[in-house]
C-alpha cells in the first residue's frame, strides 16, 4: 500500500519530467527535424502538390497545435503509422525493441557482472599488484573508442583477415544457435567497452564500502573474504549499483546500442530511431520519445522501490 501510494505520488511528480522530455525532443526532432516533403512529392511536383504534402505531414500547423496533437497521441497511446513505411508504430516497436534487448542484454549483463567481479577482486587486493593490473587495464579499456573496438572485433573475429568465425554483419536469427552466432561479436565489443568504466565505478563503490565500520566489524568477527565481499560489501553497495544499472535500462530499451546496430546492420530500435530522426519519420520519433520519458519516470520509481528493498533504512516518503 505504501508502495502503491508512493508510486502514484511519484507518477504525478514525474509529469514535469515527461513534459520536459517530450517538449525538448518534440521541438528538436519533430518541429525542427528533417523535412520529408521532397521525398514524397515525386520528380516534377507542382506547388500545390508540395503544399498538399506539407499539410498532410502537418508542417503547416503551428508549434502549439502540433505539440498538443502530440500530447493527445501520448494520452491515447496512438501514434499511428510510420510516415516512411506505413508500418504501425506499435508493430515497429514490437519488432525492434526485442531485437535490441536480445542484442544488448548479454553484453550489458556480462559487462556488469564481470565489472563487479573484477572490482571486487581489485578492491579486496587494494593497492596490490592485482588491483593495479585490473585498474590499469580499466584505464586502457576506457581509452579505446567504442567504434575502434567494434571495427577491431569485426576484423579479428569476422573477417578473412582474422579468425572468420562469426558473421560480418546482419541479424538473421531463427534459432538459439543463430542467435549465439550473431550476438557473439557485438557482445564481445559491448563487454570490452563497458568493462573499464564498470570496473572503475564499482571498485570505487566497493573500496568506499570496505572502509565502513561495519565491514571492519565483520572482519573482526572472522568473516572470510568471499562472504565478506559478496554479502557484506556487495549488499551494502547495491544502491549505487542499482542506480547505475536502472538508469541504463531506458537507454537500452530505447536506443539499444545505436552504434552496434548501425555497424552490424541489426534492425533494432536504436537504428530504427536513428533512421526515423534522419528521415523525419515523426510518428516513430514521437512514440520513441514518449516511451523514453515514461520509462525514465518508471525507472525513477522502481529505483526507489528497489532502494527500499535492499536498504531497510530507506523509506518511501
Amino acid at each position, binding site marked *: 500500500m505504501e508502495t502503491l501510494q508512493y508510486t502514484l505520488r511519484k507518477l504525478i511528480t514525474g509529469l514535469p519530467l515527461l513534459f520536459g522530455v517530450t517538449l525538448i525532443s518534440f521541438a528538436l526532432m519533430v518541429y525542427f527535424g*528533417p*523535412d*520529408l*516533403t*521532397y*521525398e*514524397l*512529392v*515525386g*520528380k*516534377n*511536383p*507542382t*506547388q*500545390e*502538390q*508540395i503544399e*498538399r*504534402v506539407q499539410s*498532410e505531414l502537418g508542417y503547416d500547423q503551428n508549434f502549439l497545435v502540433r505539440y498538443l496533437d502530440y500530447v493527445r497521441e501520448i494520452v491515447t497511446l496512438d501514434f499511428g*503509422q510510420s510516415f*516512411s*513505411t*506505413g*508500418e504501425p508504430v506499435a508493430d515497429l516497436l514490437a*519488432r525492434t525493441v*526485442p*531485437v*535490441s*534487448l*536480445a*542484442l544488448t*542484454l548479454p553484453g550489458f*549483463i556480462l559487462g556488469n557482472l564481470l565489472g563487479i567481479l573484477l572490482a571486487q577482486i581489485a578492491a579486496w587486493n587494494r593497492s596490490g599488484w592485482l588491483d593495479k593490473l585490473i585498474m590499469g587495464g580499466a584505464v586502457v579499456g576506457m581509452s579505446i573508442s567504442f567504434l575502434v573496438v567494434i571495427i577491431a572485433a569485426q576484423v579479428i573475429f569476422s573477417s578473412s583477415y582474422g579468425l572468420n568465425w562469426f*558473421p*560480418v*554483419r*546482419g*541479424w*538473421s*536469427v*531463427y*534459432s538459439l544457435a*543463430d*542467435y549465439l552466432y550473431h550476438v557473439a561479436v557485438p557482445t564481445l565489443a559491448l563487454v570490452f567497452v563497458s568493462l573499464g568504466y564498470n570496473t572503475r565505478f564499482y571498485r570505487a563503490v566497493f573500496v568506499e564500502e570496505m572502509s565502513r565500520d561495519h565491514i571492519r566489524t565483520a572482519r573482526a568477527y572472522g568473516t572470510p573474504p568471499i562472504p565478506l565481499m559478496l554479502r557484506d560489501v556487495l549488499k551494502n553497495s547495491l544502491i549505487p549499483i542499482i542506480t547505475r544499472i536502472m538508469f541504463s535500462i531506458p537507454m537500452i530499451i530505447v536506443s539499444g546500442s545505436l552504434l552496434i546496430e548501425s555497424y*552490424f*546492420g541489426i*534492425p533494432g530500435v536504436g537504428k530504427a530511431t536513428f533512421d526515423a530522426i*534522419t*528521415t*523525419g519519420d515523426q510518428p516513430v520519433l514521437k512514440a520513441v520519445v514518449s516511451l523514453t520519458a515514461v520509462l525514465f519516470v518508471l525507472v525513477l520509481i522502481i529505483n526507489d522501490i528497489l532502494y527500499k528493498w535492499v536498504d531497510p533504512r530507506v523509506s518511501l516518503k
Partner: protein
Amino acid sequence: MNSTRPHILFSGLAVIAMVLAGCSDPASRGDPDQKVYRHSMDGSATSVDPVQASTVYANFMVNNAYDTLYRYKYLERPYALTPNLARDMPEISDDGLTYTFRLRPGVHYVDDEAFPDGQGREVVASDLVFSLMRHFDPEQLSQGAWLWQGRIEGLNDWGEEAAEARDAGEQPDYDAEIPGLQALDDHTLQIRLTRPYPQLTYTLAQGFSALVPPEAVDHHGRRGLQRHAVGSGPFQLVSFTPQRAVFVANEDFRDDPVDLEYEGYDEEVHGEFGLEAIDGRSPPFIDRLEIDQIEETSARWNSFTAGNEIQYSTVPAEQAESVLTSTDPVEVDARYADDYFWRASPEAGFVYMNFNLDDPAIGYHEDPDQDRANHALRCAIRKAFDWESRNDRFYQGLGDVYPGVIPPMVDGFNPDFPDDSIRRDMDAARALLEEHGWTEDNLPEIQYGAVSSVTDRQMFEQFRGWLEELGFPGDKVRMRTFANFGDLNRAIRQGQIMSFNIGWGLDFPDAENTLQLYYGPNEAPGSNSANMKNDEFDRLYDESAVMQPGPDRNEIYNRMNEIIVDECANISALTRTRIEMWHQDLIMQPDREILGGFFVRFVDLIDDGQGGEPE
C-alpha cells in the same frame, strides 16, 4: 533473504523470453517441396502502393503484385515494350492524341476481403481510369502524378475538384467523367491527350500505372495499401515489412506461355543460364517469392555466399577487389564463377554533377561579360574533373563514362558524340580561366552540397583536390553538409545549392526522360535542378516531345545534348555497372533496374527434389 531466488529465476526466464522474442519468425522457411526463390535487394521499399512506386524497390514489389498494361521484354536490350495486361500495343490516332487500349478479358484480381464476397473480380478498364485518377487525388499522396501532369484532357481539372472536395472534408467524385480518360467498355480504354506524348505507353509500364481496384482503396485505405496489395500480378503479397516481403504464386494468373525468342533470347548472351527450360510454359514458375531487403552490403553478401539463404545479390563495392580479376572486360574470380552465375549489368540511369545556373556566382548573370566568365569557369571546372579517377576510386573502374545526358541504353545515344567534355585537360582549363580574367583572388567560393557520409565527403575532397590543382585556394571550395538526403534534396529543389552530385534513374528508356532534366519549365522545384533555361533547348524539347521515335527525333535529341554540353551546365555522366550474382540452381536472368523488375515471373528453379547445386 529466501525471497531472492524466485526473483532471480523470474528475471532469468524474462531474459530468455526476450531473447527468443528477438528471434525473427522462422515460419517463413516454407515447405521443402515448394520452389522458393529468395531474392535480395540493396534497399527497402517503403510502400507497395502503386501511387508511391517511385523507387526501384517499390516498383519491384508493385510489378509482381499488380498488373500494368505493358511491360518490358524479359531479355531484349535495349529495353523493348510488350503488352502485359493489354492485348496488344495501343491504337494511336494520326494526330497522336487519342490512344485506345484493349485489355485481356478474364483476368481476375486475387481474392481479398476488400471484395464483397471475398473473391477477386475481373479486372476491367475502369480500374485503370480509377488508378490514374488516384494520382490526382491529393489525399493519395501520389509520387507519380508528374508523369501525366497536364497531359490527359480533363484529368488536371478533376484533380483540382478533388482537392476542393478534400479541403471540404468530402470524398472526391471518382465517378465523374473525364473527357480524356474513359473506359469505353470493360475491356477498352481510351486516353485523349492535350498534346502528343509518345512516352505515354512507357508510363503505362511503370508501377505508377498499375491497376488497383477501387474496392481495395475503399476497404484498406491509403495507409493499408502501403503494406497490403490487391492486384492481378503473377504473385500475391502475403506479408510485407521494410525488411522482408513474401509472395506466393498467383494460382489464377492468366495463361500466357513464354515465347523465348520473342522475349529476346540470344544463345550467345543467355546460353549458359539454362533459360530454354521455360520456353512455352506459362509463368509464374516458382511457388514462393521471398525478398529480403538488406541495405547492409556485407550482411547481404554473407547471406548470399552462405549458400542456403538469399540466392541473388549484387556484389558489394568493398568485395569487388576480391571478386573481380579484371574490370575491363569484367572477369570474375573462379572461386565465385564456379559456384554462381554472374552478369555485369549497367544501371538504367547515371550519376552526374550539376551547377545551379540560377546562382549568379557561377551561373547566369545579367552582365554579359560576367555571364561569359561564369560560363568559362564552369567549363574549366568540367575540364578539371577527372572522370577516370572518379570511376577508378569510387566505382571500381566499372563505370561507363560518356558525354551529355543520353545514356547508352536508350535509343538516341550517339556513340560519336565528341568526348572532350569528359576528358581531363588541365592546361586548357587553366588557359580558359586566364582568358576570362579569373585569378586566385576573384574566383568565387564554390559551394558543394552533399549528405554527411564518408563517401560523399571523399567525393567532395577529391573534387576539391582537382579544383586546387586548377588554382582554387582550398578554402574557396566548401562543402555544405546535410544530415540526410531529404534536407539536401529540399535545398536543391529550392535552388540553394551551387553544385552537387546527383543521380537519375530512368523511368522509361527514352532520352526524353533525361533531357527533361534541363527543360526550363522543369526548373526548381522540378527535376531541372541545374535550373538551365536555354530558349533553343526548350524549343527543341517542345518540338521533340510530340514526335514519335525515329531518326528525326534522335537528331533533335543530339542537338539538345550538345546544348547541355555547350552550356557547361553540368559534368556528366557515368553509368554505374553492378555485378549481379545468383545461385546456379536458378533459371533466370535477373535485372535490378526499374525497367527490368518484371523478370521474377520468368524465374524457375532446377527441380532435383533436393534443391541442391546442379552439375
